[in-house]
């Protein structure tokens, strides 16, 4: 909705028409948004997860368009390959039914809708207002594996190691949580 209003701004930048990358970006973005909307509105639980796959895959394409190649593949590997599989796993273990679940949405969906719309309006207004005249230079690849590796293991080593501790903690936590305690005889 706001995209249409934003597009003419391009002309002020000197381009008569938006570049190909921008068109692809907008189209994929619309797809991502649509998939995301379906994810949060569909009444079929597994469909929601599959729409999430679409949305996340679309985001990976957006990353590629933003020249963040490494991030894109990480996105595919972790999100599509692992997170969504876990989510599907969870859905199946909690016995997601085939077909429509009438109570997929809770009672405060209208409140949620109001809040979300208000937040969207606020954020979009702010963002558009703030970055009206900002352009990204996509001339060089910004997110190659090499570049990422270099910065990650040179400047971000300490957070990276901290993160590994976090992951270990999460691993232990998940194992402890899902362990079934032996029933008292």
């Amino acid at each position, binding site marked *: 909705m706001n995209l249409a209003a934003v597009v003419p701004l391009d002309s002020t930048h000197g381009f008569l028409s938006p570049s190909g990358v921008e068109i692809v970006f907008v189209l994929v973005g619309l797809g991502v948004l649509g998939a995301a909307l379906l994810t949060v509105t569909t009444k079929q639980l597994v469909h929601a997860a*599959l729409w999430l796959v679409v949305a996340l895959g679309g985001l990976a394409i957006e990353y590629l368009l933003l020249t963040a190649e490494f991030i894109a*593949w990480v996105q595919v590997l972790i999100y*599509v*390959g692992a997170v969504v599989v*876990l989510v*599907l796993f969870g859905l199946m273990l909690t016995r997601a039914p*085939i077909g429509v679940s009438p109570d997929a949405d809770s009672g405060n969906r209208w409140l949620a809708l109001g809040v979300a719309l208000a937040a969207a309006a606020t954020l979009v207004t702010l963002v558009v207002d703030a970055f009206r005249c900002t352009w990204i230079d996509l001339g060089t690849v910004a997110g190659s594996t090499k570049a990422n590796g270099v910065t990650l293991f040179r400047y971000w080593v300490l957070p990276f190691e901290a993160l590994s501790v976090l992951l270990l903690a999460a691993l232990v936590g998940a194992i402890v949580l899902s362990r079934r305690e032996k029933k008292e005889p």
Partner: protein
Amino acid sequence: MTTTLDALVRCIAVLLVFLVFPLVIGQTEHKVMAHMQGRLGPMYAGGFHGWAQLVADGVKFAQKEDVVPSGADRKIFQLAPAVALLPYLLALVAIPLGPGGLLGQSLDAGLFFVLAVMGVGVLGSLMAGWASANKFSLLGGIRTAAQLMAYELPMLLAAASVAMAAGTVSLTGILGAFHWWWVPWQIVGGFVFFVSGLAELQRPPFDMPVADSEIIFGAYTEYTGLRFALFLLSEYAGILVVSALTAVLFLGGWHGPMAGSLGWLWMLLKTFALAFLVIWIRVTYPRLREDQLMRFAWTVLIPLSLAQLALTGIVKVVIS
């Protein structure tokens, strides 16, 4: 213009490889299993050595009615084979066949790409298992998912070992940095990678998710006709991709005598040798139980891959 044409040609080439090679592997499996098990059936179709057996199979699948169970989630049920098949097609794009850009697309993070895309394939099995509205299918899907999640980790770690040795995640870069002594150096990683690949493909002895004695045919129980054939095809394609990847990462890919001109041949030879190994293992080994399967991944493969990683790191430091 040339780049577009180039891309088009590459794509068609990859598609062709994708359409042909898995069938070749399928035929090989028929024949090899027939020989190994002394089966007589596959030796008759088409007269000479039963060459038309695969064709007959294809015709049989095409003739069968495409049944969708009434309780199933129709769309997902129909979509599942495609989701299972497509990742291998995409993976093939990044695998180099020979030196000098003989591949679909040279990717900066080729190894990463291939592994990431292969990870998506599990979705197909899950979708199929869940959408069939069949208890065995669901169990099979869940087993598939659990198995794939478990074996993805050693596979990644083993691949990371090679990437570490080469200093790059680009497949061509890895092959470029290959030396013959990498084979003994990375032999453990290669074993882990290959075994994990077998498990990813749910090939015996890791075929618990489709164990017919327990859950009929797992996630694919309800499939018939072409869709079932597509799943079989994805399996053969998976064998191709795993074999090719193993060849590239651990056996030097196109490296060999006269690599400049015959590199593609070496690559194919290595790939098919590995594919033959896959078939051989299927015929040889009994099925692992579910708990054995999991324990094998977590207590054998992962420590091994970690050890390989450590070894690679040490050697790498020593060399430099």
